[in-house]
């Protein structure tokens, strides 16, 4: 299978008072397996909505999303959750760790949800925490960690289920430059090491520039789609 993500005629509308807002407007997009792709665009352009729809976090008003060969449209919310658990990793701007779980427990959640043996899962989680440089902070709660440390835990969690595709929403948006660069490196390194496809939404053009492909969104439509191989894809 060449494309890990295939989006056909995707639209998403929201009701705002009496008005109907079209946030994603008839988007078509295909992302090849193993590449890194940045979705950029101004605030309110619809890039986060597109990411949410692509990851199966939301239902489109019309159109289709096929993730790793699975058409998400006919699936209900629980079935999509299963697909995410098996295929997808997430890194969010606001880290989104469970505040009541320790670092290692946060990392373990996706595999535990599958019902996998706890000891093996813990080992793998500690290994990943070690990879992100947090081996000695594994039993700390999120509130006891700095922003950068929290995001590293989130990165470790994103990779524990060896996802086919990793969605990152402004992963460095809440971090200072130095910490942000460290996180970027981690994500790209793990992306390469695990062979995961990376889709990231960002304002940061420098970060976008590190990706194999840059899709620019404007007013809910794809404004430009540039590959580092200089191929115009759309």
């Amino acid at each position: 299978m060449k494309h890990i993500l295939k989006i056909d005629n995707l639209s998403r509308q929201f009701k705002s008072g009496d008005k109907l807002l079209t946030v994603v407007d008839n988007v078509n997009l295909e992302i090849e397996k193993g590449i890194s792709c940045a979705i950029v665009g101004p605030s309110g352009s619809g890039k986060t909505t597109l990411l949410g729809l692509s990851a199966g976090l939301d239902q489109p008003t019309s159109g289709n999303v096929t993730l790793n060969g699975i058409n998400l449209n006919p699936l209900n919310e629980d079935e999509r959750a299963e697909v995410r658990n098996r295929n997808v990793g997430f890194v969010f701007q606001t880290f989104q760790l469970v505040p009541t779980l320790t670092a290692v427990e946060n990392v373990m959640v996706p595999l535990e949800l599958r019902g996998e043996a706890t000891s093996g899962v813990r080992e793998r989680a500690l290994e990943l925490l070690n990879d992100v440089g947090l081996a000695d902070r594994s039993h700390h709660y999120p509130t006891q960690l700095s922003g950068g440390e929290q995001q590293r835990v989130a990165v470790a969690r994103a990779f524990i289920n060896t996802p086919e595709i990793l969605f990152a929403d402004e992963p460095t948006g809440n971090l200072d430059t130095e910490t942000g660069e460290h996180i970027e490196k981690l994500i790209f390194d793990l992306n390469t090491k695990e062979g995961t496809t990376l889709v990231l939404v960002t304002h940061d053009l420098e970060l976008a520039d590190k990706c194999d492909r840059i899709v620019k969104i404007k007013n809910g439509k794809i404004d430009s789609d540039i590959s580092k191989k200089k191929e115009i894809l759309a």
Partner: protein
Amino acid sequence: MKKLSWIFKMAWRDSRSNRKKLFLYLAAIIVGVAAQVAISSFRENLNDSISEQSKELLGADLEVEKNEPFHDELEVYLDSLGGDRSDALSFTSMAYFPKSGTTRLSQITALQGNFPYYGELKTNPTSASSSFQNVNGALVDEPIMLQFGLEPGDSVKIGLTTYEIVGALQEVPGQPVAASFFGPRIYIPKQNIEETGLLQRGSRLEYISYIKYADGADPIQIEATLDAMNDSVRFGYDDVAERKEEVGEAILYLSNFLNLIGFIALLLGGIGVASSILVYIKQKISTIAVLRCVGASSNQAMNIYLIQAVTMGFIGSSIGALIGSLIQLYLPVLVQDFVPVTIELGVSWSSILIGVITGVSISLIFALFPLLAVRKISPLYTLRTVDLHLSSLLGWTTRSSLFGIIALAVTGYAWLMLREFIPAVFFTLGLALCLLLLLGIAFLIMKGAKKINPKAFGYEFRQGLANLYRPNNQTSTLLLTFGLGVTLISSLYLTQDMLLGTLNFDSGEELPNLALYDIQYDQNDGVNKIINDNGMELLQNVPIVTMRLQSINDTTVAEFMADSNRRAERWALNREYRSTYRDSLVSTEELDSGTFIGSVDNFNESVPISVSMDLMGDLNAQLGDTIIWDVQGIPISSYIASTRTIDWQTPQPNFFVVFPTGVLESAPQFFATTVNTPNREASLLLQQKIVQSFPNVSAIDVGQILSTVRDFIDKVTFVIQFIGLFSIITGLIVLAGSAATSRFQRIREAVLLRTLGAKKRQVIKIQIIEYAFLGIMAALTGLTLSVGASALLGYFYFDIEFIPNFTILAIEVLILVSLVLLIGLLNTRGIHNRPPLQILRDQAS
């Protein structure tokens, strides 16, 4: 299975840092379950005690009674039973205590034989219970001995006979302490009872025989024989099984009623649970969204919190059950006076189990409101910050189903408690109506506060008022929980006050405050002379003639009794009527139909009588019906010429049947006289003089009776209020919970205001204004509803016009507002003296 274990593990992990937050949730359930378990355990222990002491409830195997000497057939049968038999004569009479110079209307039992056969007459000294019959002595109720400073060796005069008091009477088998509320009990020997001169015509005598069966007797056979005999020879009887059943039923009704009041506390706790879980889940939205994002299904997400809610419900219920088991140790103090057995307490595991199940079920049902919303929390919330209203996530069908489940559960429980379906439905509907009213009022308050928030008032006032309707306000929760608690307790207070108010006629100058009865025909002039000589006003001097019904419209009473289709009440057919004769209606009567005929010249013709409306209904009689009376052996024919409505709530003699003058004058009769005495001392003096001259005359001192009734009502209502208090406590806990959950927001606001330059005084003032408003609104709403409830109770149930006691209402408002203010201000404790940044950091962590 592994997924299930993860849910449990996750529920445990997730609860780690939140357990303190859920304490108030626990507390709301603890109080409700404690009330339930206390009452149920106590009931079970009481029932066990009754079973263990069932024979002592009667003191014998069989008790037979009749208000005239037993018929020969009955006497012969009772003698044939073998075993042992004691006979007693019971009546009320004035007792005079020479040592203190006081008199008191007393319940006299003249006893012959070895009664009680089970249990014992407890006396001080102990030997007095067995010796009083041999030495012709008297046993006098201990409280009256203490009150009048009497000791064994002193004397009591009953009728014409003076007895030496040989001991203080402490306990009679099967009689609660309350049995002596309306007159002290005095036991004397039955032999020579005639010498007292009290067994005259008109005296209300009860002939009682206590039987102890011979070995091998068959109680079922005996009961069957007595039943058959009772059809022809009318008498009353009780055996152990029947008495046990009667007492058990009375206790069941009382405890079920109390359980229902306690259940309201549990329901309030349920509302507290729903409110706590709602706030809790609101704080968990992002966690749930993350879990959904990484692959948790909607059910898995919900189950994490469901397990937490049920576990907390279980812990709360278990603690509540423990506390309830301890509280029941106190309940005997409240009700021992009304219970005819010695209560032996123990742990009731079944009550604990039912309490825990009820507590967990209530937690679960009410927690479902916010928990079902968890299923609808979208993983998309990881990408977007939303201010989500959980309740808006639930569809109409889900909400209706949940309300339906709650209504079914409440009705089911009420049905279980009341044993009747329709009242249970009314209980649920009433409760729902009350809650809807409270919610509606909360809505109006919020709308009103928003609309009228006056610009002319100061900033603090406007802020305080605005807090009533701003997001995360506590108006609805407080109105609902605290308001319902206040409604319940206040209704009890006001109803008690209403009932006591109807008895408050001792100060009325025109009303009698002393009633004398059993005045024999030849004593009437003498009694009247003493009253007049003492300068007292004689209000009524009424002749009374005893009679029985012989037939109605040519159908004899026996024929009525034998007819299973009869529509007349048994008591109305069988009773001994005490009728009077006069030529006009009195102030307590109103003509309802027909013509009141005051006198007749010839009583050989059918006599026109006037019958009370109550009796007309119970006899199923019509105007014009003919009745033949057996007036002490002489048949007198009459017809119903008029009917009267009688105000029975006045302390003067009223009669079911009034004859015209010219008929009963020559019949054996006695008199009842009512007097208005200027004060208590004058009343006591008059009683002494009359009793010394005419020992058989009994006096009912209205003042004395009223204070006894007040004591009695106070005791009964205290028991109900004690249980009702659980609702108030739950309301306060839910309020504290609601205040605590909004603490962070309140602190943020307070800190922000202080950062912007507000003084400590201003911040406190805003909070005082908010909580004072909340307190006043909740108190006024609860009290208004309770006034309505009391008025309805007065109108439909007690037939009393309800006039609210504004002093009680004002005091209640003051107490309730103070409580709300106290809780509200305690909630913001410690934030005024610390630097804003430190508080924000503490809260963030």
